[in-house]
């Protein structure tokens, strides 16, 4: 019953988020601040992880191809497919559920504990619109961060491939161009938009409706991370089935 209640409360929160909008001059500042906190602030970790995971995918693929009949360009091909289809959109989103999600839950949860949300409500401000809506809009730029992740993942693969001596640069470039289907990138960005919405709203839900003190803020952050990850994995399955299946 608790799960059903939470699902209902989550959708009511989404509906409430669009009611009684905050003044645009204030909202604009909030969105810019959230773009800085959630997107720009995450670029470093996305770049670092993408570059090295791209490298690891390349090394793993190269080491597992010991049949001389399999062409060397397959290393680049496999790296491109893995990074664009799964690593950049899905696994980066799981990492972001930890980074961005805990930040959102703990910042909103702390505002709840310290009565800052009550202060907004007393002033007649729709606190959900004020707190959650700008984060949702800011995270609509998340595909940009994922595009950076895709580029650096493939670049990291190339660096590992060439400097590790697993194949030539020409083979790797041939591999990343082979059988390129632009719909795969569109599919990845569709997933990313959906994950961005999940990343903004599920952690906000757990932060906004938490009760208690500092300990509960920590617990809410953990719960938010678990549920955000679960929902991302499930939606990944559903979207993949719908778009590629």
């Amino acid at each position, binding site marked *: 019953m608790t799960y059903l209640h939470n699902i209902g409360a989550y959708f009511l929160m989404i509906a409430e988020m669009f009611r009684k909008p905050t003044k645009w001059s204030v909202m604009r500042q909030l969105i810019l601040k959230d773009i800085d906190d959630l997107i720009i602030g995450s670029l470093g970790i996305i770049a670092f992880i993408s570059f090295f995971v791209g490298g690891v995918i390349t090394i793993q693929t190269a080491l597992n191809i010991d049949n001389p009949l399999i062409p060397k360009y397959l290393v680049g091909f496999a790296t491109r497919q893995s990074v664009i289809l799964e690593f950049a959109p899905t696994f980066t989103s799981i990492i972001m559920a930890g980074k961005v999600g805990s930040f959102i839950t703990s910042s909103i949860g702390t505002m709840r504990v310290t009565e800052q949300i009550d202060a907004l409500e007393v002033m*007649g401000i729709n606190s959900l619109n004020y707190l959650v809506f700008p984060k949702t809009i800011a995270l609509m730029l998340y595909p940009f961060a994922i595009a950076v992740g895709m580029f650096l993942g493939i670049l990291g693969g190339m660096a590992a491939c060439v400097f590790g001596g697993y194949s030539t640069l020409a083979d790797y470039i041939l591999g990343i161009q082979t059988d390129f289907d632009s719909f795969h990138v569109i599919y990845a960005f569709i997933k990313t938009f959906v994950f961005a919405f999940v990343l903004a709203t599920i952690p906000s839900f757990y932060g906004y409706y938490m009760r208690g003190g500092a300990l509960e803020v920590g617990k809410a952050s953990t719960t938010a991370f678990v549920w955000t990850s679960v929902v991302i994995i499930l939606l990944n399955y559903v979207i993949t089935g719908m778009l590629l299946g």
Partner: protein
Amino acid sequence: MIEVKDLHKSFGDAHILKGITTSFDKGKTNLIIGQSGSGKTVFLKCLLGLFEYEAGTISYDGKIFSNLSESEKRDLRAEIGMVFQGSALFDSMTIAENVMFPLQMFTKMSKSEMEDRADFVLKRVNLPEAHNKMPSEASGGMQKRVAIARAIVNNPKYLFCDEPNSGLDPKTAIVIDNLIQEITDEYQITTVINSHDMNSVMEIGEKIVFLKNGLKAWEGSNKTIFKTDNASVTDFVYSSNLFKKVRKMYIEENE
């Protein structure tokens, strides 16, 4: 003036407010007192519209809150200032930004007009040079004064304070009490303070509503509280030896 008639509020099976009827006068510091668990905070949150209640009415200068449309409620809330127990300052903003926040949300003032107004109210609460500090850099007393400045910056008609003295040393508590009373008198605000600080009761309780087990057990002022023989009030207010002596001295002086 705020009038409350037969207010009932429950949480599940727990009946918290059991039919409270009272009024809070304009230009006076009205105190709600009572033991922990007596329903003070629930009562205050009902007055603020943060809790919905099952029965009864709350009217602000004749306007019954539950009969107002959403936009009328929003307009009314813009006339309310609130000082929370923990100050509830927005910790991502500087002190000046906190004070300017209601102006930013509800007025069309230019940035310089807002800065002038923030400057004025911060001076009024004796914090002329705190503008650029973050709330975390301010002491508890300073945070309370900033919260008062934020509450009065938009010229509210109603000011609510939830235990404004909690966590403050006695000297700072008196400063805060006097500040609230001065502001109430100066701007003719209807001020409602939720407190269990007996110094506040004696100093600024121009009207006192005593709650016990969700009922109004007594109503009076800091003048009449010394003379009351209501056992619930005397048990609560004069529970310390110091206040027993103060009461005895007051009665002896006035006989």
